Protein backbone atom coordinates (compact mmCIF):
# COMPACT_ATOMS: atom_id res chain seq x y z
CA UNK A 1 0.00 0.00 0.00
CA UNK A 2 2.84 2.37 0.81
CA UNK A 3 4.32 1.70 -2.67
CA UNK A 4 0.97 2.58 -4.26
CA UNK A 5 0.78 5.76 -2.19
CA UNK A 6 4.36 6.60 -3.11
CA UNK A 7 3.53 6.36 -6.81
CA UNK A 8 0.24 8.25 -6.28
CA UNK A 9 2.16 11.10 -4.62
CA UNK A 10 4.36 11.56 -7.66
CA UNK A 11 1.43 11.18 -10.07
CA UNK A 12 -0.57 13.83 -8.22
CA UNK A 13 2.44 16.15 -8.07
CA UNK A 14 3.25 15.82 -11.77
CA UNK A 15 -0.44 16.01 -12.68
CA UNK A 16 -0.88 19.13 -10.55
CA UNK A 17 2.13 20.83 -12.11
CA UNK A 18 1.03 19.89 -15.62
CA UNK A 19 -2.61 20.71 -14.99
CA UNK A 20 -1.70 23.95 -13.31
CA UNK A 21 0.46 25.06 -16.21
CA UNK A 22 -2.30 24.13 -18.66
CA UNK A 23 -4.95 26.01 -16.66
CA UNK A 24 -2.62 28.99 -16.32
CA UNK A 25 -2.15 29.07 -20.07
CA UNK A 26 -5.84 28.60 -20.79
CA UNK A 27 -7.18 31.16 -18.34
CA UNK A 28 -4.60 33.88 -18.37
CA UNK A 29 -3.21 33.86 -21.87
CA UNK A 30 -5.23 34.76 -24.95
CA UNK A 31 -4.93 31.38 -26.65
CA UNK A 32 -8.31 31.17 -28.32
CA UNK A 33 -7.07 28.72 -30.90
CA UNK A 34 -5.91 26.18 -28.31
CA UNK A 35 -9.18 26.54 -26.39
CA UNK A 36 -11.05 25.58 -29.51
CA UNK A 37 -8.62 22.78 -30.21
CA UNK A 38 -9.36 21.12 -26.86
CA UNK A 39 -13.10 21.65 -27.46
CA UNK A 40 -13.62 23.93 -24.49
CA UNK A 41 -14.91 26.94 -26.45
CA UNK A 42 -18.56 25.74 -26.26
CA UNK A 43 -18.45 24.71 -22.61
CA UNK A 44 -20.51 27.22 -20.57
CA UNK A 45 -18.53 26.63 -17.35
CA UNK A 46 -15.31 27.15 -19.21
CA UNK A 47 -16.66 30.34 -20.80
CA UNK A 48 -17.71 31.63 -17.38
CA UNK A 49 -14.27 30.92 -15.96
CA UNK A 50 -12.49 32.42 -18.98
CA UNK A 51 -14.54 35.61 -18.74
CA UNK A 52 -13.80 36.20 -15.05
CA UNK A 53 -11.86 39.35 -14.14
CA UNK A 54 -8.09 38.86 -14.12
CA UNK A 55 -7.86 39.43 -10.35
CA UNK A 56 -10.25 36.57 -9.68
CA UNK A 57 -8.41 34.32 -12.11
CA UNK A 58 -5.18 35.05 -10.25
CA UNK A 59 -6.88 34.26 -6.91
CA UNK A 60 -7.77 30.82 -8.22
CA UNK A 61 -4.07 29.94 -8.36
CA UNK A 62 -3.43 29.90 -4.59
CA UNK A 63 -6.72 28.08 -4.10
CA UNK A 64 -5.70 25.22 -6.37
CA UNK A 65 -2.16 25.24 -4.98
CA UNK A 66 -3.63 24.87 -1.47
CA UNK A 67 -5.81 21.95 -2.61
CA UNK A 68 -2.85 20.19 -4.21
CA UNK A 69 -0.60 20.79 -1.18
CA UNK A 70 -3.25 19.43 1.19
CA UNK A 71 -3.78 16.38 -1.02
CA UNK A 72 -0.04 15.71 -1.20
CA UNK A 73 0.22 16.03 2.61
CA UNK A 74 -2.58 13.49 3.05
CA UNK A 75 -0.91 11.05 0.67
CA UNK A 76 2.51 11.47 2.31
CA UNK A 77 1.18 10.97 5.84
CA UNK A 78 -0.90 7.96 4.73
CA UNK A 79 2.24 6.50 3.16
CA UNK A 80 4.14 6.81 6.44
CA UNK A 81 1.18 5.31 8.31
CA UNK A 82 0.97 2.26 6.06
CA UNK A 83 4.73 1.85 6.22
CA UNK A 84 4.47 1.74 10.01
CA UNK A 85 1.70 -0.85 9.83
CA UNK A 86 3.84 -2.94 7.50
CA UNK A 87 6.71 -2.76 10.03
CA UNK A 88 4.35 -3.95 12.80
CA UNK A 89 4.32 -0.54 14.44
CA UNK A 90 0.58 -0.18 14.99
CA UNK A 91 -0.43 1.22 18.36
CA UNK A 92 2.19 3.92 18.83
CA UNK A 93 1.87 7.65 19.61
CA UNK A 94 3.39 8.50 16.22
CA UNK A 95 0.51 6.75 14.41
CA UNK A 96 -2.05 8.50 16.61
CA UNK A 97 -0.52 11.84 15.60
CA UNK A 98 -0.50 10.87 11.92
CA UNK A 99 -4.18 9.89 11.92
CA UNK A 100 -5.11 13.06 13.78
CA UNK A 101 -3.18 15.23 11.31
CA UNK A 102 -4.78 13.49 8.32
CA UNK A 103 -8.20 14.07 9.86
CA UNK A 104 -7.52 17.76 10.43
CA UNK A 105 -6.19 18.24 6.89
CA UNK A 106 -9.32 16.57 5.53
CA UNK A 107 -11.51 18.96 7.52
CA UNK A 108 -9.73 21.89 5.86
CA UNK A 109 -10.08 20.16 2.49
CA UNK A 110 -13.80 19.61 3.01
CA UNK A 111 -14.27 23.30 3.83
CA UNK A 112 -12.32 24.38 0.74
CA UNK A 113 -14.15 22.01 -1.59
CA UNK A 114 -17.58 22.16 0.10
CA UNK A 115 -17.75 18.37 0.22
CA UNK A 116 -19.81 16.92 3.05
CA UNK A 117 -18.53 13.38 2.46
CA UNK A 118 -14.93 14.55 3.01
CA UNK A 119 -16.03 16.11 6.30
CA UNK A 120 -17.69 12.85 7.37
CA UNK A 121 -14.55 10.87 6.52
CA UNK A 122 -12.42 13.32 8.50
CA UNK A 123 -14.71 12.97 11.52
CA UNK A 124 -14.45 9.19 11.25
CA UNK A 125 -10.66 9.52 11.16
CA UNK A 126 -10.70 11.63 14.32
CA UNK A 127 -12.85 8.95 15.92
CA UNK A 128 -10.34 6.33 14.80
CA UNK A 129 -7.63 8.48 16.37
CA UNK A 130 -9.33 8.10 19.76
CA UNK A 131 -9.52 4.33 19.28
CA UNK A 132 -5.82 4.24 18.45
CA UNK A 133 -5.06 6.35 21.53
CA UNK A 134 -6.70 3.74 23.72
CA UNK A 135 -4.96 0.99 21.80
CA UNK A 136 -1.62 2.74 22.31
CA UNK A 137 -2.06 2.92 26.07
CA UNK A 138 -3.09 -0.76 26.16
CA UNK A 139 -0.06 -1.65 24.02
CA UNK A 140 2.24 0.27 26.34
CA UNK A 141 0.77 -1.51 29.35
CA UNK A 142 1.21 -4.85 27.60
CA UNK A 143 4.82 -4.04 26.62
CA UNK A 144 5.65 -3.03 30.18
CA UNK A 145 4.04 -6.08 31.77
CA UNK A 146 6.69 -8.54 32.88
Amino acid at each position, binding site marked *: MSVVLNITWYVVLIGAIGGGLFLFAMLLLPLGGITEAVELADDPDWQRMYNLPLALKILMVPYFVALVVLLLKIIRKSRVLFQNFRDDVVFRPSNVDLIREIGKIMIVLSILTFHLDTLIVSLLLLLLCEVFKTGTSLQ*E*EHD*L*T*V
Partner: protein
Amino acid sequence: MGIIFRLDRVMADRKVSLGDLAARVGITNSNLSILKTGKAKALRITTLEAICKELDCQPGDLLEYKREPEGNTIIPD
Protein backbone atom coordinates in the same frame (compact mmCIF):
# COMPACT_ATOMS: atom_id res chain seq x y z
CA MET B 1 7.22 6.76 45.35
CA GLY B 2 4.92 3.62 45.17
CA ILE B 3 6.21 0.10 44.82
CA ILE B 4 9.99 -0.27 44.96
CA PHE B 5 11.46 -3.42 43.45
CA ARG B 6 14.49 -4.64 45.40
CA LEU B 7 15.65 -7.15 42.77
CA ASP B 8 19.19 -5.72 42.62
CA ARG B 9 19.74 -6.29 46.32
CA VAL B 10 18.49 -9.88 46.31
CA MET B 11 20.43 -10.70 43.11
CA ALA B 12 23.62 -9.33 44.67
CA ASP B 13 23.03 -11.38 47.86
CA ARG B 14 22.55 -14.56 45.82
CA LYS B 15 25.35 -13.61 43.41
CA VAL B 16 23.10 -14.08 40.35
CA SER B 17 23.56 -12.09 37.15
CA LEU B 18 20.73 -10.52 35.18
CA GLY B 19 21.19 -12.76 32.15
CA ASP B 20 21.39 -15.87 34.29
CA LEU B 21 18.25 -15.01 36.23
CA ALA B 22 16.35 -14.09 33.05
CA ALA B 23 17.21 -17.47 31.49
CA ARG B 24 16.18 -19.37 34.62
CA VAL B 25 12.94 -17.45 35.06
CA GLY B 26 12.07 -17.74 31.36
CA ILE B 27 11.81 -14.07 30.42
CA THR B 28 14.00 -11.93 28.21
CA ASN B 29 16.90 -9.83 29.48
CA SER B 30 15.10 -6.68 28.38
CA ASN B 31 11.96 -7.59 30.35
CA LEU B 32 13.97 -8.29 33.48
CA SER B 33 15.83 -5.04 32.91
CA ILE B 34 12.47 -3.21 32.65
CA LEU B 35 11.59 -4.68 36.03
CA LYS B 36 14.96 -3.85 37.53
CA THR B 37 14.90 -0.22 36.35
CA GLY B 38 11.37 0.35 37.57
CA LYS B 39 9.75 0.95 34.19
CA ALA B 40 7.36 -1.99 34.48
CA LYS B 41 3.68 -1.16 34.77
CA ALA B 42 2.53 -4.64 35.80
CA LEU B 43 4.05 -7.85 37.10
CA ARG B 44 2.50 -11.24 36.48
CA ILE B 45 2.07 -13.52 39.48
CA THR B 46 3.73 -16.31 37.51
CA THR B 47 6.81 -14.14 36.92
CA LEU B 48 7.00 -13.14 40.59
CA GLU B 49 6.62 -16.80 41.56
CA ALA B 50 9.41 -17.83 39.18
CA ILE B 51 11.76 -15.11 40.47
CA CYS B 52 11.10 -16.09 44.09
CA LYS B 53 11.69 -19.73 43.24
CA GLU B 54 15.02 -19.03 41.50
CA LEU B 55 16.27 -16.58 44.12
CA ASP B 56 14.85 -18.62 47.00
CA CYS B 57 13.18 -15.62 48.60
CA GLN B 58 9.76 -14.26 49.56
CA PRO B 59 7.77 -11.71 47.54
CA GLY B 60 8.20 -9.34 50.45
CA ASP B 61 11.97 -9.52 50.01
CA LEU B 62 11.56 -8.18 46.49
CA LEU B 63 8.78 -5.62 46.91
CA GLU B 64 8.56 -2.61 49.15
CA TYR B 65 5.89 0.06 49.30
CA LYS B 66 6.53 3.72 50.01
CA ARG B 67 3.60 6.12 50.15
CA GLU B 68 3.18 8.42 47.12
CA PRO B 69 0.66 11.20 46.51
CA GLU B 70 -0.74 9.66 43.28
CA GLY B 71 0.06 7.08 40.59
CA ASN B 72 0.99 3.48 40.99
CA THR B 73 4.39 2.67 39.52
CA ILE B 74 7.09 0.19 40.34
CA ILE B 75 10.29 2.13 40.92
CA PRO B 76 13.84 0.85 41.14
CA ASP B 77 15.92 0.26 44.23
